[in-house]
């Protein structure tokens, strides 16, 4: 099925309504079982031992004291751990280096698992892990991230159009913007419960993709995929880090091998979440804009320097979004990478776009100031007719509509042009705007859905999708109910289990596009095959439909975010009393959960603007603020009036549902809007997040 020309007729109106979450009762009552919470009479517990050097070799491991400790079942290290396949072909961006746990004496980053204890209880495992003694042959390490390094790699050829050096115009913005290392920190730590029965393994796993885990584990172990079962209906957030597998899952798999027929449990501690499961790379963004006096861009030049690991490459594509945002005949976007002795970075909500829209969107604000333009007008003047990166027409692009509607809702018209113009008592007050952008990306992996009539007009829809809090469970129920033409309560969606039909990873904001389209296709096929009065047991399945025009159009979602910022003239304290976003992201399937997705993204964006920064001590290679007392994320009191709106966008070209994906765009642009508002409040341009208490002190004359 490949018809993408018309919006499908809604039969019940379930699509676009706002029902409460179908899994809500289990979540509010605390009865929803997350990976670590399955009951096992015979549970054993695994505690990792982590390297205390950043580079070198394990010279000796003394496990005697640990093995003698009460309750210890096994102590694993590279000398006795089961072997993993070195030639495993891993799906997606899985990092073999990161996953080859306990396979050699080499130490590639501080915190790398170098041993593990399996014991009868959590306390016994923790205790014994501290008794394992390691001797190292330490080698000099290099964990110093800097854009000034002389050994930066160019991972991919720069994107070039025209000649950015020859761009003309009297206005130049040439600045460097930085974003820090950040950690995903879903509230549920990465957790695994692994159990071997003969040559088959069952994993209860906190993951964004049951099939991804199954395929990866099968490959690493050299097993048929059918011998690996992954169960993950409830996942306590992921924000990217639960997309690819990380070391703890493999540790649990290896540990469980040592105690067959027992369930081995491992949940990363919050501290371990800062060394074992990935992070967002820091970025240094050199942005050079050239424009005429009216603010029309002639050149855009963005170089993003990012951190990668010697153990495995991951490039945070922070120069990516600038390719598509604004028109300019001369353009260059490129990445430089410092490959260091550090853990491998990974996806974190809107990888690339989130940090990559900070620099350019602050630079656009600077351009507006330089040209004496309103920041919205500066963006309107550079609106491209076609996608600058590819030359293709846009399927839909409603950035300007978002800016205009946001301006109306926010009350932008009253804004004084000059910074520092509004003072209320000891507070300076300002407002700022930034654009949001997120591409329609192809899903990672295929999808297939099965619709079965259970009798009495009730239907069961199955696919192994993951609802990590996105609302997919509810939205898929709506899609099926809508197409089948039955009440919501008559549809039961089963997901989060590799025994169910294949589903793509929950990542890239692709859930509705892939699973939604697939369920839509399966339900449509069901009615076509079985009519409106099917026999009990009647079934139909469908695969993810092809998108007919994917290669003919540039497909992206857009948004505009507005922030009000108050800066205290005495203390430099920064508050954000108002955030407002307007988004154009295709069709919204569930108004209630969609609002939560947008607002949740903006809240995390606010957290990025004001709080989040992992501080890596290059001397030792570890993050020094590795807990919630020191790595601040926004608390309830930091978030005041925060609103999300969307425009009714019809885009039949993106997929049969017309949905573009909403999980990530909310975080894109928030930090720039806040920084721009802080400039407007104080006249001080801060080109780094998080904004700090002492950033504004000089200007406010304290």
């Amino acid at each position, binding site marked *: 099925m490949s018809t993408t020309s018309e919006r499908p007729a809604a039969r019940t109106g379930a699509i676009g309504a706002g029902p409460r979450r179908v899994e809500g009762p289990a979540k509010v009552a605390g009865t929803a079982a997350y990976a670590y919470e399955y009951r096992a009479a015979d549970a054993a517990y695994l505690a990792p031992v982590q390297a205390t050097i950043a580079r070198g070799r394990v010279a000796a491991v003394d496990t005697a004291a640990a093995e003698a400790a009460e309750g210890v079942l096994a102590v694993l290290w590279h000398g006795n751990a089961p072997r993993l396949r070195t030639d495993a072909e891993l799906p997606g961006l899985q990092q073999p280096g990161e996953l080859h746990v306990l396979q050699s004496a080499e130490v590639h980053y501080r915190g790398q698992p170098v041993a593990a204890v399996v014991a009868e209880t959590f306390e016994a495992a*923790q*205790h014994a892990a*501290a008794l394992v003694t390691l001797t190292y042959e330490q080698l000099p390490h290099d964990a110093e991230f800097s854009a000034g390094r002389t050994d930066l790699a160019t991972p991919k050829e720069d994107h070039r159009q025209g000649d950015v050096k020859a761009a003309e115009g009297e206005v130049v913005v040439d600045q460097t913007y930085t974003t820090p290392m950040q950690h995903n920190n879903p509230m549920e730590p990465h957790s695994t419960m692994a159990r071997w029965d003969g040559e088959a393994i069952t994993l209860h796993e906190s993951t964004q993709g049951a099939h991804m885990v199954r395929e990866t584990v099968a490959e690493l172990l050299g097993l048929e995929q059918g011998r690996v079962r992954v169960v993950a209906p409830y996942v306590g957030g992921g924000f990217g880090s639960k997309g690819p597998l990380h070391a703890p899952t493999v540790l649990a798999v290896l540990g469980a091998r040592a105690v067959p027929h027992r369930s081995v449990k491992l949940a990363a501690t919050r*501290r371990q979440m800062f060394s074992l499961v990935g992070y967002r790379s820091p970025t240094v963004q050199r942005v050079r804009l050239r424009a005429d006096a009216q603010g029309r861009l002639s050149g855009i030049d963005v170089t993003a320097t990012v951190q990668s690991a010697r153990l495995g490459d991951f490039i945070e594509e922070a120069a990516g979004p600038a390719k598509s945002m604004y028109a300019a005949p001369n353009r260059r976007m490129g990445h430089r990478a410092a490959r260091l002795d550090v853990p491998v970075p990974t996806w974190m909500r809107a990888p690339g776009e989130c940090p990559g829209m900070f620099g350019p969107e602050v630079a656009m604000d600077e351009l507006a100031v330089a040209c004496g333009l309103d920041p919205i007008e500066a963006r309107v003047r550079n609106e491209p007719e076609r996608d600058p990166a590819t030359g293709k027409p846009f399927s839909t692009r409603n950035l300007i509509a978002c800016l205009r509607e946001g301006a109306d809702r926010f009350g932008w018209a009253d804004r004084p042009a000059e910074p520092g113009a509004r003072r209320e008592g000891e507070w300076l007050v300002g407002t700022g705007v930034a654009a949001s952008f997120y591409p329609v990306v192809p899903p990672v992996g295929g999808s297939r859905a099965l619709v079965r009539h259970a009798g009495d007009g009730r239907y069961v829809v199955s696919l192994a999708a993951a609802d990590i809090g996105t609302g997919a469970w509810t939205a898929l129920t709506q899609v099926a109910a809508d197409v089948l033409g039955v009440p919501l309560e008559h549809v039961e969606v089963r997901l989060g289990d590799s025994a169910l039909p294949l589903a793509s990873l929950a990542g890239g904001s692709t859930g509705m596009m892939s699973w939604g389209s697939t369920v839509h296709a399966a339900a449509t096929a069901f009615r076509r095959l079985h009519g409106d009065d099917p026999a009990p047991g009647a079934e139909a399945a469908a695969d993810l439909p092809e998108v007919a025009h994917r290669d003919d159009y540039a497909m992206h979602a857009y948004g505009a975010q507005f922030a009000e910022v108050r800066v205290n003239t*005495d*203390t*430099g*304290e920064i*508050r954000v009393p108002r955030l407002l976003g307007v988004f154009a992201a295709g069709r919204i399937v569930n108004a209630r959960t969609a609002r939560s997705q947008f607002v949740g993204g903006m809240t995390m964006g606010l957290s990025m603007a*004001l*709080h989040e920064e992992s*501080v890596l001590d290059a001397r030792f290679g570890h993050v*020094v*603020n590795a*807990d919630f*007392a*020191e790595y*601040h994320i*926004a*608390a*309830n*009191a*930091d978030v005041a009036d925060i609103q999300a709106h969307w425009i009714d966008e019809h885009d039949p070209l993106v997929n049969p549902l017309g949905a573009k994906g909403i999980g990530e765009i909310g975080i894109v642009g928030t930090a720039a809007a806040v920084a721009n508002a802080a400039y407007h409040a104080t006249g001080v341009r801060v080109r780094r997040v*998080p904004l*700090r*208490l*002492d950033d504004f*002190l000089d200007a406010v004359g*304290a």
Partner: protein
Amino acid sequence: MDFLSPDTWAGALAAKAARPEAVPVMGGTDVMVELNLGRRRPHALLDLTRVPELARWGAEDGYTRVGAGVSYTRLVERVGSRAPALAAAARSVASPQIRNRGSVGGNLGGASPAGDCHPPLLAAGALVELASAAGVRRVPASEFYLGPGRTVRREDELVAAVLVPEPRGPQVFAKVGPRNAMVIAVVSFALALDVAARRAGTGIGSAGPTPLRARAAEEFLAREFDWAGGADPSPEAARRFGDLVAGAARPIDDVRGSAAYRRHALAVLARRAWARCAAEVRGGGV
């Protein structure tokens, strides 16, 4: 790990005498963090939650005696008007859940330079009551702290109580942090005035290896404060007071803030504290 759980104060002191290495634990909000993070692996814990004497408070010879086990919540609720600066600090310690369990005794036992209770105790001229099987002694708060996590408490002693003088004038506490709540202070400051004696007490938190007093600032304020009328200080006097407070600090740069920012913010908090105290004197709210 042994778990000692005496249900009388005498029993607690005897247990501490027999096992001086036992780590005392009340609400657990400090000690448990260290245990869970593996920073400490004691052979014995001395649980004091069942000792009724520690949960008591009451007036005693011009002081309010607050048992070391009185939770922050209870302190705010019941002792607030008798120890205003301490109560204000207690309102902002960590999270509400922790305030329901944690206590001043624990804050003193841990003696983190960032502990919120220390500046008010210093400013108010409080005493710390230490007890062992051998006897009881009361140490001025200004002599209690030795360094990060170190105090004059001997290994066989337990913190029994703090004694806060009855307020004889306005008291304020304020802190600055990067987050609106649940924040470890970048700096904190307390000011307590004795209107009758025309004396001032100060306390500085998070800006040195121990909580500190700003003695020169105290003397300056005592001279310059409008004790009778509560007039606002002159801008010069306010600035000077702020500078003296900032000058008494010994801050370092860390993840939470630079030393320069800490001095600046302390000066701000000090000036504000003066203004608030003056307003209270004017308003007759003492």
